[in-house]
């Protein structure tokens, strides 16, 4: 009842106003003769249009025309319309009513829209500042989810983080296992389900499976799971939802960055620990071997007064101690490589790397013929000198082990596109075809005495440089071929 009254009130005011102005004009014209008093009606219509819109304004203008015509236009007391000028007056009044009400209505709409926008941005601003202030991103995310379900069309809004490939519900309630699977699928394939977002606007897609199953939207580091009622959505709400999703995206990303930083700190600490353990281990293992070798070799002089067979025994023991030392060194090198190796890459000439390795092994290489085929114009390689030095010494030691006592060892290299292809070859017995790949496996060895570590280390170092290594049987004997990256900058002079 009151609603009907309120609806009708503007119309009554329109008619009442027209009557009041008619009375006022009548009063004025009875005293003095003032022309153009009908303009008062215009004021009324303007006001009605601005205040209540088209209906009351049109009612007011029709009422005003009828009253004016009846009371003031001769013949007074009739409603006849004579001549175009009176018709024109009516048309002007109606036009004013329509135009002002239209203008006023769009003004009112614009004002209403800007008020919602202001409210929306206030909400977003509060959420964003709260998110920045709280150290726990999850708290801010929960606030965000609460805000989202306050929208009339959104009945559910949950956020799932994807931490290193693992789905973890963060805010807005738990998910069923099925929903977790669906969210994971959506994230991994980067494909939204039932919803799309573009240019800051959310759109529900036709494939939206209805209110029963939620829609999934993959974000940079998580998934937004939401249920939206298709009948109730308003453009303003969808805009707000899009803004909330954008904010959730940022917050999830911030959370992931924090997590990754934490994880990196953990890794760093464990790397330092590993390095410390390895260095203490190498000291503990190598110190006794050092004393052994120093003591054994101390007695290998005539002044020590030992018999030849006693000396031979000492030489044998020293050789064993050396073997033990090499084994410990290989094991430590391998565990260092496994602990994660940081390469100190610089441009190096391949010939110099070979020269260094040959110099280090010069006493072992005595009696062997070593041919090096490394042309002067070989471009430099971008490698860690010490690690690649280890590859070369290991391959040379391997060749020494298999080549006949005075056998030949060949080292060489050619440039191939972005890589240098290098090889070490000996004229020892061929490797069984089935073992060509296995020789690089850790602890795999062709001899009872080998540690099975040397070639495994080679493989790791070469692969850490982005190269490959392989074994093959050539006409002369087994050849180990590996690739190393060429230096990008040829020379800095």
């Amino acid at each position: 009842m009151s609603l009907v009254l309120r609806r009708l009130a503007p119309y009554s005011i329109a008619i009442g106003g027209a009557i009041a102005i008619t009375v006022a004009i009548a009063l004025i014209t009875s005293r003095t003769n003032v022309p153009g008093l009908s303009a008062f009606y215009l004021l009324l219509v303007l006001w009605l249009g601005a205040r209540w819109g088209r209906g009351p304004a049109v009612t007011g203008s029709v009422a005003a025309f009828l009253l004016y015509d009846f009371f003031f236009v001769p013949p007074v007391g009739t409603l006849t319309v004579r001549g175009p000028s009176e018709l024109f007056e009516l048309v002007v009044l109606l036009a004013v009513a329509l135009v002002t009400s239209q203008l006023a209505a769009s003004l009112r709409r614009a004002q209403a829209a800007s008020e919602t926008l202001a409210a929306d941005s206030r909400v977003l601003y509060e959420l964003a500042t709260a998110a920045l202030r709280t150290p726990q991103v999850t708290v801010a995310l929960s606030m965000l989810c609460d805000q989202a379900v306050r929208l009339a069309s959104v009945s559910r809004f949950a956020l799932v983080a994807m931490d290193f490939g693992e789905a973890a519900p963060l805010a807005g309630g738990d998910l069923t296992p099925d929903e977790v699977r669906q969210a994971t699928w959506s994230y991994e394939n980067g494909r939204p389900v039932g919803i799309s977002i573009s240019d800051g606007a959310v759109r529900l897609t036709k494939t939206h499976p209805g209110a029963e199953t939620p829609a999934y939207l993959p974000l940079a580091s998580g998934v937004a799971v939401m249920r939206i009622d298709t009948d109730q959505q308003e453009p303003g709400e969808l805009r707000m939802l899009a803004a909330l999703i954008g904010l959730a995206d940022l917050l999830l990303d911030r959370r992931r960055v924090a997590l990754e930083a934490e994880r990196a700190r953990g890794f760093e600490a464990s790397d330092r620990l590993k390095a410390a353990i390895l260095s203490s281990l190498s000291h503990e293992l190598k110190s006794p071997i050092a004393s052994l070798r120093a003591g054994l070799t101390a007695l290998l002089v005539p002044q020590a007064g030992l018999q030849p067979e006693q000396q031979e025994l000492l030489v044998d023991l020293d050789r064993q101690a050396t073997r033990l030392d090499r084994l410990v060194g290989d094991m430590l090198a391998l565990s260092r490589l496994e602990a994660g190796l940081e390469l100190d890459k610089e441009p190096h000439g391949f010939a110099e790397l070979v020269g260094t390795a040959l110099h280090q092994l010069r006493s072992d290489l005595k009696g062997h013929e070593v041919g090096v085929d490394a042309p002067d114009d070989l471009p430099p390689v971008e490698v860690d000198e010490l690690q690649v030095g280890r590859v070369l010494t290991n391959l040379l030691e391997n060749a020494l082990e298999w080549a006949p006592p005075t056998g030949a060892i060949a080292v060489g290299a050619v440039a191939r596109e972005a890589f240098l292809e290098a090889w070490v070859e000996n004229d020892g017995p061929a490797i069984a075809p089935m073992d060509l790949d296995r020789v690089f496996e850790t602890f795999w060895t062709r001899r009872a005495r080998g540690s099975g570590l040397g070639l495994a280390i080679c493989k790791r170092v070469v692969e850490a440089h982005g190269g490959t290594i392989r074994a093959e049987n050539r006409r002369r004997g087994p050849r180990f071929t590996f690739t190393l990256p060429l230096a990008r900058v040829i020379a800095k002079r």
Partner: protein
Amino acid sequence: MSGRVLVVDDEVEMQRALRTGLRYHDFEVHAVGSGEEAVREAAAWRPDVILLDLGLPGMDGFATLRALRPATRAAVIVVSVMPGERDKVRALDLGADDYVVKPFGTEELVARIRAVLRRQADVSTGEPVVQTGDLEIDLGRRSVTVSGRPVHLTPTEYELLRYLALHAGKPVTHSTLLRQVWGEYAVGDKYNTRYVVAQIRKKLGDDPANPRFIVNEPGVGYRLVS
């Protein structure tokens, strides 16, 4: 040739082995187990060579090296288990004359000791001609010959070779070479020294894959064979 050798090592077994081994080679040997004792003994006994283990308890090898340098003119050979290249460079920059990696054989150690003693003797006589194989570097006349044939080097190449020759047999670090050849405020890196060494080798007819004169010390620098 003989001399006084001070062994600084905290392992008693190592001390005993070295004392025995080096005495057979006619060296006088004293052995101590800490850096503090080493500094005292270096001043009191005046050894010719100090074998300094880097892994000492308490005052570590580097601190000992720093304390030793003003106290003695003895050659210092740093001894260490698996030293990182950075440790080697640091020891050399702190004034060590050479380094030996543990474990080592007595013969190898004796060779190193004799080499530093020989170098000390050469420096004290001020011999202006350094000879290694058929390479001859006449520091007085600034001339370089291989088998009597003169070799023309640029000033930079000569400076680098001269510095290596002045320290023949001793590893010289990249940073020292940069500083000595290009000046105190040299801007550059190992690539500069590598490039110049490659040029010198080419002119000397020294094969980098089988060097006769200039040997690469991986991760550290270069050494002129003496």
